[in-house]
């Protein structure tokens, strides 16, 4: 079978947003630039613009999520779209309906866009390959594979605080192995021209050959944080202790938790990011999370503008 890039249509125009991998830098910059114009909207008294009026957007969440789903919902509503939230985890799939049957049924209700989260890597690709060409799919997180809007909002935040990408050293710290956020961040950072991306983790939380993604691997956080401009922390799931990836969250915090002392090893103007939800005292110390170098709450705010940008760009890219 021929595996063409399923995100782009035959004219090379963005049709779906599934992963950061394989998207050209101008496509990413266009999303970030469009998001800039929406930041103003989100700060106005009347926060609605009619770009997506009459469009039906379905939030298809096969995995529980509050924050991501809410920010997608807010973004769609600010663009005046009609939003339908389906909590599939407790609905059709438990009655035996397959993923694609669910999608077909919703397509028959004249959906214009699906926002999909699923525990399996590749679920959004499967749906994008299946739907009619006038329906757009946004991946809101698939397994360990990708979380492209999170990476885009991270890039937006970095650009806001650091202006340029080409002179930065960025470190991603934590559970790279299981993280769709980390994979998308790595692709976005390298695509936008960040010369040095590091991953910092114990060997049990690093996937094989991760250096092939264009990153430098550090097991020692003290060495990895030297000269760093941007720190991107990752959430540590409690299951990692059960699967013998780690002995305890305390020992993890000792070596990889971001404390003020460790943060002092980075550049003095380094910014600290986290995709949320945070485990205070596991991957990040509260003093750092709430400190002056933290940009964690602005990330959330920018997430709405970035998701508005993605939705409006896809909706305007009709075939």
């Amino acid at each position, binding site marked *: 079978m021929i595996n063409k890039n399923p995100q782009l249509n035959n004219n090379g125009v963005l049709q779906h947003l599934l992963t950061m991998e394989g998207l050209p830098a101008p496509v990413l910059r266009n999303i970030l630039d469009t998001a800039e114009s929406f930041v103003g909207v989100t700060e106005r008294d009347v926060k609605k613009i009619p770009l997506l009026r009459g469009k039906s957007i379905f939030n298809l969440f096969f995995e529980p999520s509050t924050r991501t789903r809410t920010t997608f919902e807010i973004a769609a509503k600010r663009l005046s779209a009609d939003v339908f939230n389906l909590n599939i985890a407790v609905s059709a799939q438990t009655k035996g309906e397959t*993923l694609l049957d669910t999608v077909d049924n919703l397509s028959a209700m004249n959906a214009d866009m699906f926002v999909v989260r699923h525990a399996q890597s*590749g679920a959004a690709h499967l749906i994008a390959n299946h739907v009619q060409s006038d329906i757009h799919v946004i991946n809101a997180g698939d397994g360990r594979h990708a979380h492209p809007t999170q990476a885009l909002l991270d890039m937006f935040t970095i650009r806001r605080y650091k202006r340029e990408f080409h002179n930065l050293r960025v470190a991603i710290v934590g559970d790279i192995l299981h993280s769709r956020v980390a994979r998308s961040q790595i692709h976005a950072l390298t695509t936008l021209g960040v010369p040095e991306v590091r991953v910092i983790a114990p060997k049990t939380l690093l996937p094989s050959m991760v250096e092939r993604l264009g990153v430098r691997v550090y097991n020692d956080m003290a060495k990895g944080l030297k000269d760093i401009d941007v720190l991107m922390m990752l959430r540590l799931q409690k299951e990692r202790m059960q699967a013998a990836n780690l002995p305890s969250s305390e020992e993890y915090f000792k070596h990889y938790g971001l404390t003020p002392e460790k943060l002092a090893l980075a550049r003095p103007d380094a910014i600290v990011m986290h995709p949320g939800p945070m485990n205070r005292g596991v991957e990040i110390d509260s003093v750092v999370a709430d400190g002056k170098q933290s940009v964690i709450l602005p990330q959330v705010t920018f997430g709405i503008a970035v998701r508005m940008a993605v939705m409006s760009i896809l909706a305007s890219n009709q075939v």
Partner: protein
Amino acid sequence: MKIHIKNGRLVDPKNGLDGVQDVFIAAGKIIAIGTPPDGFHANRVLDADSCVVCPGFVDLSVRLREPGFEYKATLESEMNAAVAGGVTSFACPPDTDPPLDEPGLVEMLKYRAKNLNQAHVYPIGALTQGLRGELLTEMTELNDAGCVVFGQPDGMLSNLRILMQAMRYASTFGFAVWLRPQEINLTNHGVAHDGEVATRLGLPAVPVCAETIALSNIILLAQETGVRVHICRVSSAEGIRMIRVAKQRGLPITCDVTINHMHLSDMDIGFFDSNCHMMPPLRSSSDREAIRSSLQDGTVDAICSDHAPVDEDAKLLPFGQAEMGATGVELLLPLTLKWGLEMQLPLIDVLAKITYQPAQILGVDAGHVSVGSAADLCVFDPEDYWQVTPAALLSQGKNTPFLGMELPSVVKYTLVNGHVVYDRYT
């Protein structure tokens, strides 16, 4: 029925034949090669001009999905597919539902297959009851019912003592044990080879050591028990190296690889192509190169299709949830020839991997063209090409990573016991 196959290029690896010679068949057997016996009058003449005439192929793994999984495939559909691919003998793994662990089940399967009057079916008996790895099966009873070898297709037994006992018991009666090396705790929930592709796609990974650690146990237990062991579906360069060493030390070990692993690597998963979800996983391109060269140097004895028809719905799922396996019995010859063409090997050496060498592993008298032997033959045009499409496949399973590809060779006739069981022109 007397049949005369004329003008074909007869290629028989076992007897070292390669030249234009006619074949004469009567009463289900080959009665002469080259010149007709006195007074021979054929009822039917098959013109094999510009075609290869060779032994029918022997496939070491064809899942018929009976009993238990008839919605995926039936005996009829898969037997038709086999002879359309020139396969005249094949082994079927015991992982049916219920598993092939009782003589009655095996007899029923043999009986139903025999009534279809097509390829010879050799069921692999379950090594343990219910394939649960706890209690031994009645191997001699199963052998009387038609099982020629015994296996445990879902990977290693978790209890090595039971495996050692099963090997000892099998060797008591001279039975071979077939095992696919897989340490299940290391496979865990993995669905793709532990390498760059799985890392990029975020797919749970299966490390090479899941194969090699199990293989090391199997080799050491084979040495301990003296049983004849066949290693099924080896997938890694390191695994092949270990088998090479074991063979050099004189252990009675053979091994096979699949048509998928000799042509594909994890790169072919592309954007989550669920047709590439198989176990063992498609490994790296260096593993694939090791498979291809060790077939040539003889470390790998046979090529099998690992035919596993899967119904379409079971593949229309995210990669990790999609059922593993691919249809393949109709691709055994084309993909074996493709390997031979790419490696620039003589046809006679290439065909050995799907004729007498797998027959010897299975322990059956098949896979050769000799006067007096059963007339199980395949006639194919080596110069012709066909495109793999769902419509072109007779198997009920249409799932294969090779969909859309053009492959060499078109089977014209397949004969089993002197009967034409496949004729492209009818």
